[in-house]
């Protein structure tokens, strides 16, 4: 008789069924889970139960957001297919069903086009899941300005004014105490031409006119600069495990380099009369959809506000709201086709 085994590692859960024919393994990652409870809704055997996510989120109690009853679980994989953040993954003989065409998958994606990206890092800052990393290589400063600078060391009195004034830290002096054999306060003064931006502040502030400097960018405009030298290059990376396809990157990107496709369509409504502004929804929302308006000092914050642009209609806020002030409606569940009528039915029942 084939039976399931369950292994719990920290907050992660793994349910297995091994038979001579195949090995089925359902792995749950708690740090990826957003507590939406879609797995519990779609499970055909009621093997998954959503925990007290409000308490778990707020108290940081050492408990998984969901529990899986291995006696009820039949390892069909529906939870894995329906999880909007891929916190659950069913593997058949070590191969994920997310890579199998016969299993329906939610249609969701987030991409940043390297051709369009200007590496401004707005998405990296905005991403509520810290899923985006932008690595950029800045242009070389010395290639963006040209000029000439020379210090007449015979005239220089080593006062150090230019060194102190230089905004680019390009001037360096070798200070020392004077001795009878070397009665000077500095043995040398050098200009680092990679750092110098030819702003001419040193020349203007030198009390003895020891510095000769010209800025060629000013006199010749940009003619002698190679436009390619001013380009910032780089690469972008989206951590698929952390990404929830909320769309912040797409909305904030100034050059439309980020594109996000969401699996669910729907509607989010908040009953302002019922809301008690407890903030549980704000904390659980993986997409930073919900927030409180800035309150005047000493005044109680207003009711919660929502910007549906970033909503993925996962329903975590609805689950966590203690006064049932939030309603999340799912009107469409986009998934790849399946020939199975039962899967089709279960997936479409996620619509509310």
């Amino acid at each position, binding site marked *: *008789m*084939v039976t399931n085994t369950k292994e719990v590692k920290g907050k992660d859960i793994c349910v297995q*069924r091994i*038979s*001579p*024919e*195949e090995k*089925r393994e359902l792995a749950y990652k708690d740090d990826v889970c957003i507590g939406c409870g879609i797995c519990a809704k779609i499970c*055909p*055997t009621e093997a998954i139960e959503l925990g007290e996510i409000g308490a778990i989120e707020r108290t940081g109690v050492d408990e998984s957001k969901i529990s899986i009853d291995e006696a009820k679980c*039949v*390892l*069909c*994989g*529906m939870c894995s297919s329906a999880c909007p953040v891929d916190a659950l993954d069913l593997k*058949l003989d070590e191969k994920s069903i997310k890579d199998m065409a*016969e*299993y329906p998958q939610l249609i969701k994606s987030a991409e940043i086009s390297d051709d369009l990206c200007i590496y401004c890092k707005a998405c990296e800052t905005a991403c509520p899941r810290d899923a985006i990393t932008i690595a950029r290589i800045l242009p070389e400063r010395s290639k963006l300005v040209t000029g000439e600078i020379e210090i007449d060391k015979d005239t220089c009195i080593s006062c150090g004014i230019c060194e102190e004034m230089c905004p680019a830290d390009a001037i360096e002096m070798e200070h020392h105490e004077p001795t009878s054999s070397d009665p000077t306060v500095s043995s040398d003064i050098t200009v680092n031409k990679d750092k110098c931006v030819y702003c001419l502040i040193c020349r203007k502030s030198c009390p003895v006119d020891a510095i000769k400097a010209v800025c060629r960018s000013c006199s010749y405009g940009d003619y002698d600069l190679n436009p390619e030298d001013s380009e910032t290059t780089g690469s972008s990376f989206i951590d698929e495990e952390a990404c929830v396809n909320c769309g912040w990157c797409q909305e904030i990107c100034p050059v439309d380099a980020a594109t996000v496709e969401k699996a669910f369509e729907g509607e989010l409504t908040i009953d302002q009369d019922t809301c008690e502004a407890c903030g549980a929804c704000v904390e659980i929302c993986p997409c930073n959809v919900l927030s409180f308006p800035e309150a005047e000092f000493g005044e109680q914050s207003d009711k919660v506000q929502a910007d549906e642009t970033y909503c993925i209609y996962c329903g975590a806020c609805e689950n966590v709201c203690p006064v049932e002030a939030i309603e999340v409606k799912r009107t469409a569940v986009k998934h790849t086709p*399946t*020939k*199975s*009528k*039962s*899967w089709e039915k*279960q997936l479409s029942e996620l619509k509310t």
Partner: protein
Amino acid sequence: MTAVELIREGLSQKEVAKILEMDRSTVSHYLNGRNLSWNSIEVAEIITKFCPKDFLTLTYALLNDSEKTRVIVKTCSKKSYKASVEESCIGCGLCVDTCLLNAIVLDDLKARIDSDWCNGCNMCRDVCPTDSIKILEVNNGY
């Protein structure tokens, strides 16, 4: 070991030709009547008349070899069955893993039962979480 061998002999006596063909020549010398305990054949005969599930599970328990179990049970089961899977099947594969005769495969997230191999044990039906399997005995000529 001898008990297992004897039971297999008993079954072989009944379906000599078939077993010979499938079990190659290694057991052929048992079939000539030597080292035969008639008592064991009687036991074997009783076993084949068990309900399909008991016949199958007992044979498997005695042999602990799924290939031999498949051949013996298939050979000695006189009845035929018509198995069907309804659309409510979720493709969990529990029936596939349960079927000792390897009569079930998954096809596009739906179980497909090979009625030729089905011996009507109903174990798949019992484990099915969605109650999607129907197995009927077929009476030829009726």
